């Protein structure tokens, strides 16, 4: 074992969230160690390939997970390399609604669910949303659903694609409002990065960085300060606390190539790996003071898991819609259905976002899932005559939907393997049925001759490290600090008490900015005193 390394902060995971912390900390003058399991693609133009299958090279592998329940398919949502999910994301960058922060107050708690209001309001997050949009280079414009004090995104909207214009006709015919989407994809050259070339392969990694990718936008500038030590192909296996169990002292990590273990001490430790691996690491790091895992005195670590239940619809028309062109998601959107205004028997709602681009395999796999043989090929021949619409459905956190570990089954580093239990809640299924109906209505009104919809599947894993004021019902405080520990933070969608019905990344980024500022202020205070 080598000598102990010492840093102001240790960031575990150089993905979408880790990049925010690494960037903010180094800009503030902190010395940072960032440990990443995956690799660092330093030349996107050469290393990324325009092919639909390439997505899977960039995303997290769940193959060692034990899975129970009917809801978890291990969809390609989470990242696996420096830049994390932003390498494979669609770049949809939406702010949650004000009412999303107080689901329980607005709707109550559906039977069997475990919803809670957020410990912060949207008003508190707005300045960080503004900053996140600036960093990412969001394109869009103020729209129907913005609160009056919402700033315009830094770039004008992306132009509507032919299939989006067709969908717009469907929304109009039904009296549903629609608007240009908000995407972290450049509608014009922004901060030295190219405008979008409409190639359609966002999820394979953007070769020209027109899409916000955290490794390019945040990690590279952090490295340029000389204060960031980025270690790749290494996995953190343990977090150690002080003898009293109230301060996280160090992490242990293993080089995947050499097998060498290193210990590193940090004044602050921020876990940014993902909603499965964060609880896994904490539950694995048992000690005399934390017999059930760090911060798990009240059995809250890993609980309240949920996602956005998702439906993809494909509408076949006789028009040439050139479906292959575009950035992949949210060229056009309608958020009217994010609130259940039709008095249906559910709480919450769903967003409706257009899909474009090179996703022939996904269309064959999802909306056309019931077809094969001639039936399938005949419909796929309409690929470029298709409109594609996706619904993200607000999923319900449930206490027993959770991430745990199997202490009898370990990986090669002696870490217990994760177990995921995820069962759809009745409310999820009711919203899904309504979303399917609405997708059919919109596409039919837009001129589709046939509409096909996918089965329900999960997107955007969230929960497992819920924020809250009460350690008996939440895992962290409102800054993501693990209850009971003074300097151990977590970040990402794992913090969300509820997830609304829009893509979570912009909100995760804004939360990370807010927490990083808090940590920087504390670090400055400590530095001044000592």
């Amino acid at each position, binding site marked *: 074992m080598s000598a102990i390394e010492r840093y102001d902060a240790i960031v575990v995971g150089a993905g979408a969230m880790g990049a925010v912390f690494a960037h903010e900390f180094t800009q503030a003058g902190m010395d940072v160690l960032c440990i990443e399991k995956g690799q660092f693609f330093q030349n996107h133009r050469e290393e990324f390939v325009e092919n639909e299958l390439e997505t899977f090279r960039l995303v997290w592998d769940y193959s060692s997970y034990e899975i129970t329940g009917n809801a978890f398919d291990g969809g390609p949502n989470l990242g696996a390399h420096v830049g994390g999910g932003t390498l494979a994301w669609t770049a949809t960058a939406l702010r949650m609604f004000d009412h999303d922060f107080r689901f329980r107050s607005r709707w109550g708690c559906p039977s069997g669910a475990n919803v809670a209001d957020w410990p912060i309001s949207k008003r508190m997050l707005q300045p960080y949303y503004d900053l996140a949009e600036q960093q990412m280079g969001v394109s869009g414009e103020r729209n129907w659903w913005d609160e009056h004090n919402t700033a315009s995104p830094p770039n004008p909207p992306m132009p509507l694609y032919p299939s989006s214009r067709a969908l717009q006709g469907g929304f109009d015919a039904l009296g549903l409002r629609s608007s240009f989407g908000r995407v972290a994809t450049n509608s014009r050259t922004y901060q030295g990065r190219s405008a979008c*070339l*409409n190639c359609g392969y966002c999820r394979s990694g953007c070769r020209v960085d027109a899409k916000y990718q955290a490794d390019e936008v945040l990690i590279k500038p952090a490295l340029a300060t000389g204060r960031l030590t980025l270690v790749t192909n290494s996995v953190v296996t343990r977090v150690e606390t002080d003898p009293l169990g109230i301060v996280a002292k160090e992490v242990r990590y293993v080089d995947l190539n050499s097998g060498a273990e290193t210990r590193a001490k940090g004044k602050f430790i921020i876990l940014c790996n993902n909603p499965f691996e964060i609880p896994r690491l904490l539950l694995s790091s048992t000690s005399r003071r934390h017999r059930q895992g760090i911060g798990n005195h009240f059995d809250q670590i890993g609980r309240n898991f949920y996602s956005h239940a998702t439906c993809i619809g494909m509408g076949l028309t006789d028009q040439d819609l050139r479906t*292959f062109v575009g950035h992949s998601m949210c060229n056009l959107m309608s958020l009217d259905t994010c609130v259940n205004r039709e008095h249906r028997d559910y709480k919450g709602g769903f967003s409706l976002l257009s899909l474009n681009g090179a996703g022939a*395999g996904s269309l064959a796999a999802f909306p056309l899932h019931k077809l094969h*043989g001639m039936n399938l090929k005949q419909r796929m021949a309409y690929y470029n005559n298709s409109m594609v619409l996706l619904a993200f459905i607000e999923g319900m956190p449930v206490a027993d939907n959770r991430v745990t570990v199997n202490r009898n089954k370990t990986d090669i580093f002696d870490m217990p393997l994760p177990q995921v239990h995820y069962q759809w809640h009745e409310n999820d299924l009711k919203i899904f049925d309504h979303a399917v109906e609405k997708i059919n209505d919109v596409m039919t009104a837009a001129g589709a001759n046939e509409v096909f919809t996918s089965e329900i599947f999960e997107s955007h894993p969230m929960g497992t490290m819920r924020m809250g004021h009460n350690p008996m019902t939440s895992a962290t405080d409102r800054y993501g600090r693990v209850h009971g520990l003074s300097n151990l933070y977590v970040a990402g969608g794992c913090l969300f008490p509820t997830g609304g019905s829009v893509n979570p990344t912009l909100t995760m980024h804004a939360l990370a900015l807010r927490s990083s500022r808090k940590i920087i202020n504390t670090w400055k205070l400590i530095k001044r005193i000592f």
Partner: protein
Amino acid sequence: MNFTQQQYLVIRALAEGIFPQLPDSPGASELPVAEMFITIAQAWEPQVFQATANALDIINDISLSFFGLPIAQLDAYSLAVITDVVANNPDLKPFWAPFRMLIALNYYALPPAYEAVGLPGPSIDNGGFTPDGYPA
């Protein structure tokens, strides 16, 4: 872990059942779709791999009981019948759903398949497309 030759032939035939050859587009058995599926399956946990191998054997047995021939020797019509049977058998759903998804994703990752539906493929090095879908 490896599939047997017979299991490989079942994968190839079933992929063709999902994506049969048409005059204007290739069948899955003309492309390395089965090989791509096998590469992915080899990374699975042993019990998942074994369950898949068992399902492939069962499907071949179904073909033998229906037509007296292994699935790899069926004509296009008979293959379509067996593919229907497999797709609609609830006991085979745990096999069929991920199998079909992987075959679909792998098939349309190959230029002859995606070009046949009008997807032009990589364009960045030529400047991409206009928003209306014409070369920039």
